[in-house]
């Protein structure tokens, strides 16, 4: 079980490889093969001639060619360290046969490697006996038992018996090293994987070997926990049960788990994962190594938000509003109610708005877009005024790998560490390994700033001016001219107009016409939903325009498909007026949200892991999403709900020749998408299933046009506002996951410490923040990463509704800050 999730799984080692077998193998291979044309090199591994690419390690060459070498510390995505000594093999060299650590030995042409001689076996058994000298044999009560590389390799490559009779080492067990991870030092074999991950991959060097020597142990600094957005990966790569994840501890045994490969839809990166379930309940996600996307990593939000699927607050049956509030009912009654509302509304043109689709699959979004088409609804959007215009997908598109190998990565958008965690890991890796230089434009310091070649601060809205100034810098101009340039473009500030970003991207394109764009829109399948037809035709009909129409009473019905404008629209006042102003709200969602509470009809949708389909990530990569558990209650996939509604609309129903009329399964919808949506022809069901890393589809979207944007002048008293997201916030999926709910930092207004002093307030004081729109009272904090004159506040956090002071129509938001009370 879970072989695909761990590179260290022992193969069924052949214990009885005798010299005769090796000779026989050599005899079989005497047929001379012609020298290949490529630059590969020749190795003799266990007597068989093999060809490998140059520049690799012996351990990889052996494992690729079926000679499994046991190992613990070696991980293909991290630099080798030779800590555990388990991967000893024999290499014949000019000075005779040597036993070497294969993870530290580079391959060489003509190298002769033996992995199964008696000497190798003896060496490996010796190392294992030493590793087990202090390792407790508590496998029956250890979470790792059953999927433990140490356990497996003790069986396959161990001596079977230990000569150690002494007392083993004892430590206090287990100790929490963060809110999510427990450490059991007795079980640790000091392989350096978690500490290397924290250092090399995550860049959060908060765990380290301490008391090196006889009592070496992995430890945090006293009272400074391992707070990393990527801490869950250390649990996955731990080759023993030393690190365990709080949400999974003692929940299941590996042999009870049943799994399916899928794609995480927590954000638009689309990490490949396996969904593991026990007794029809999702119990763990593990990262799968997809070379194109996540390299096996996940962020903690993606890894642990499965708890929300199992939340007892899941919507499990349809509800309609009666005199006593939202009342559970049957699907037939709820669908008829919804259809009745829609039929009445459809008598008036353009009186139904549809928002959402980005939390579901491509198929879900397609069905809802088709329903919007037959209803004649132009008011539709997969975003909620918190992203960029769809035209951002119309630029020449880069993939993640292209970005990570570009000469220059231009960051023009959100803090990727907070919004698209694994993309941050990939770009950080690119900068650290010196493949790329990062040129960052941002209003405040971000997670990638420490790794940037140049990080340019600009005032909110002033991106274009910053780009113009940067382009006149000789060093930057030379760098941009030097090679491939990838622009990562997204919405870095919810309190400023998205036009500011588009204008700056256009300015960059004027200077570097051959640049490509990696759109950094964050929500799960927002890219797919936009391409499926949930994109507004123009900005007269986007989410903000839809909400505006609703607030003015021009819409009779607002359909929210997994969309929660009350929480997610940056302009909170507009969202409130819209929900209050529209006659009816139909909500299709998995969990109760602020918006479902105001709905007239609530239709429960199946969530991730409860339905199958395909999803499209930010590079346009279509991968499959698979069902693992039975859907909650009577919930249905969104596409099915769209179909159910679409046959109840009388003369506005799906016409009888509509392709969706014949769709019986989600695979049928996938095929309809492939045959009807422009660009998706290659993304048929079989292609997506059978292509490694999925299929990258082109976006047939007109490129965004910008009339230019320059921020209005400001006076010296005001602060210009930046609102952006943190990884953990008040989002439903996070708050309904018990382990994650407390990780949200909460609301606050962050100012440069000098500005805090200048205002004459203390950190922790409440201040009133007044914009042209409204006033909120909020806690003030000092942060040196915020430049002077700028106020930064995290979006959608408990305790402060900063959305109240944002006017989506204004280009930027200026605020006056005063001591409260």
């Amino acid at each position, binding site marked *: 079980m879970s072989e695909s999730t761990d590179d260290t799984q022992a193969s069924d080692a052949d214990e009885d490889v005798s010299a005769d077998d090796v000779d026989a193998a050599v005899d079989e291979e005497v047929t001379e093969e012609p020298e290949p044309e490529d630059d590969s090199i020749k190795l003799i591994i266990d007597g068989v001639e093999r060809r490998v690419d140059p520049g690799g390690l012996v351990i990889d060459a052996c494992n690729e060619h079926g000679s499994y070498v046991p190992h613990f510390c070696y991980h293909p995505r991290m630099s080798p360290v030779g800590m555990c000594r388990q991967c000893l093999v024999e290499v014949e060299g000019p000075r005779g046969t040597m036993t070497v650590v294969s993870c530290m030995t580079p391959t060489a042409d003509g190298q002769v490697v033996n992995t199964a001689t008696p000497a190798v076996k003896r060496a490996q058994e010796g190392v294992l006996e030493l590793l087990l000298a202090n390792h407790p044999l508590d496998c029956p009560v250890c979470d790792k038992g059953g999927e433990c590389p140490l356990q497996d390799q003790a069986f396959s490559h161990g001596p079977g018996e230990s000569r150690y009779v002494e007392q083993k080492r004892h430590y206090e067990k287990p100790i929490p090293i963060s809110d999510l991870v427990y450490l059991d030092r007795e079980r640790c074999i000091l392989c350096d994987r978690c500490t290397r991950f924290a250092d090399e991959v995550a860049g*959060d*060097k*908060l765990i*380290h070997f301490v*008391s090196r*020597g006889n009592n070496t142990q992995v*430890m945090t*600094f006293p*009272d*400074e926990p391992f707070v990393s957005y990527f801490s869950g990966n250390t649990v996955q790569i731990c080759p023993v049960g030393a690190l365990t994840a709080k949400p999974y501890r003692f929940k299941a045994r590996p042999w009870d788990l049943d799994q399916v490969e899928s794609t995480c839809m927590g954000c638009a990166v689309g990490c490949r994962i396996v969904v593991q379930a026990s007794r029809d309940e999702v119990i763990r996600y593990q990262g799968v190594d997809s070379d194109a996307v996540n390299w096996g990593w996940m962020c903690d939000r993606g890894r642990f938000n499965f708890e929300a699927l199992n939340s007892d607050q899941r919507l499990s049956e349809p509800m309609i509003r009666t005199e006593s509030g939202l009342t559970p009912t049957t699907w037939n009654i709820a669908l008829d109610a919804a259809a009745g509302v829609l039929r009445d509304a459809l008598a008036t043109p353009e009186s139904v708005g549809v928002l959402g689709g980005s939390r579901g699959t491509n198929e879900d979004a397609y069905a809802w877009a088709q329903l919007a088409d037959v209803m004649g609804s132009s008011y539709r959007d997969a975003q909620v005024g918190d992203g960029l215009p769809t035209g951002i997908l119309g630029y020449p598109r880069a993939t993640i790998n292209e970005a990570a190998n570009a000469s220059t990565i231009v960051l023009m958008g959100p803090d990727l560490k907070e919004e698209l965690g694994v993309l941050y890991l990939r770009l950080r890796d690119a900068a650290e390994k010196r493949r790329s230089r990062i040129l960052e434009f941002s209003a405040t310091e971000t997670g990638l700033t420490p790794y940037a070649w140049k990080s340019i601060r600009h005032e909110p809205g002033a991106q274009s001016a910053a780009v113009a100034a940067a382009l006149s810098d000789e060093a930057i101009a030379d760098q941009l001219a030097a090679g491939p340039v990838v622009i990562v473009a997204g919405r870095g500030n919810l309190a400023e107009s998205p036009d500011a970003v588009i204008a700056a991207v256009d300015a960059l394109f004027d200077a570097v016409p051959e640049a490509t764009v990696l759109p950094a829109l964050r929500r799960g399948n927002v890219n797919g939903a936009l391409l499926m037809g949930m994109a507004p035709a123009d900005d007269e009909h986007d989410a903000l325009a839809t909400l505006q129409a609703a607030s003015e009473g021009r819409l009779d019905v607002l359909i929210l498909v997994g969309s929660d404008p009350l929480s997610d629209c940056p302009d909170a006042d507009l969202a409130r007026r819209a929900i209050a102003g529209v006659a009816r709200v139909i909500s299709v969602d998995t969990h109760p949200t602020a918006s479902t509470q105001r709905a007239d009809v609530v239709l429960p949708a199946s969530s991730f892991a409860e339905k199958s389909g395909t999803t499209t990530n930010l590079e346009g990569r279509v991968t499959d999403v698979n069902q693992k558990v039975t859907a909650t209650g009577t919930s249905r996939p969104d596409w099915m709900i769209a179909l159910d509604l679409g046959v109840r609309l009388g003369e506005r129903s799906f016409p009888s020749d509509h392709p969706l009329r014949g769709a019986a399964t989600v695979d049928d919808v996938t095929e309809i998408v492939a045959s009807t949506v422009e660009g998706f022809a290659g993304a048929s069901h079989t292609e997506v299933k059978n292509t490694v890393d999925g299929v990258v589809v082109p976006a047939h979207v007109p490129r965004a046009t910008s009339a230019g944007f320059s921020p209005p002048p400001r006076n010296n008293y005001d602060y210009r506002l930046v609102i952006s997201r943190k990884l953990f916030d008040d989002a439903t999926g996070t708050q309904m996951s018990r382990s994650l709910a407390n990780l949200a930092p909460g609301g606050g207004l962050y100012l440069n410490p000098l500005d805090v002093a200048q205002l004459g307030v203390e950190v922790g004081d409440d201040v009133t923040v007044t914009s042209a729109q409204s006033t909120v009272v909020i806690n003030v904090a000092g942060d040196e990463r915020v430049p002077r004159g700028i106020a930064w506040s995290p979006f959608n956090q408990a305790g402060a509704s900063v959305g109240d002071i944002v006017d989506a129509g204004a280009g930027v938001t200026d605020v006056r800050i005063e001591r409260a009370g």
Partner: protein
Amino acid sequence: MSRLSDHHVIVANDIIARCPRPKSALIPVLHLAQEQDGYVSTDAMEHIAELIGITPAEVYGTASFYEMFKFEPVGKYCINVCTNISCQLLGAWELLEHAEERLGIKSGSTTTDGMFTIEDVECIAACTEAPALQVNYRYRYRVTNEDFDALVDDLRNGALDDEIPPHGTLARVRQTTPDNWADTGRRAQEAVDAR
């Protein structure tokens, strides 16, 4: 206990500036902290992490390798009694036992007046002069019980103040950096970068 004093920050920055990589200054700067407080406090390690630009966990990981960095307050005088083979054969355990009785504490702990800490240690490379001990790393050879009592008395009444400074004191005369060295680290790094 405390972060580095203003004076020590100046010295620390001076040391850091002399290193091509700030991290190389870690050990000397840890010594500064130990000199200031007699041990390396958690606050001091955090402060050092800030000064050098690494995480406190990295500081702790390096510092905790070294037996001579203490992370809890120790006595003004740290007495290390060697209990390795030569000393053991010539009465180290008996000496240690006497020391424990005389000071009224177990090995590994500190007297309540904060004057003495006793530790039993591995070989201190004085086998020819066994049994040997160290007071703040100053050697005493062929130590008898009477010698030990006299040593304690002398330390208490200040007779040895000139010879044995309080724990943590590294050198009576600290090397100062010539003015033209102040930039050594940066210039060395520039030379590396230029290459």
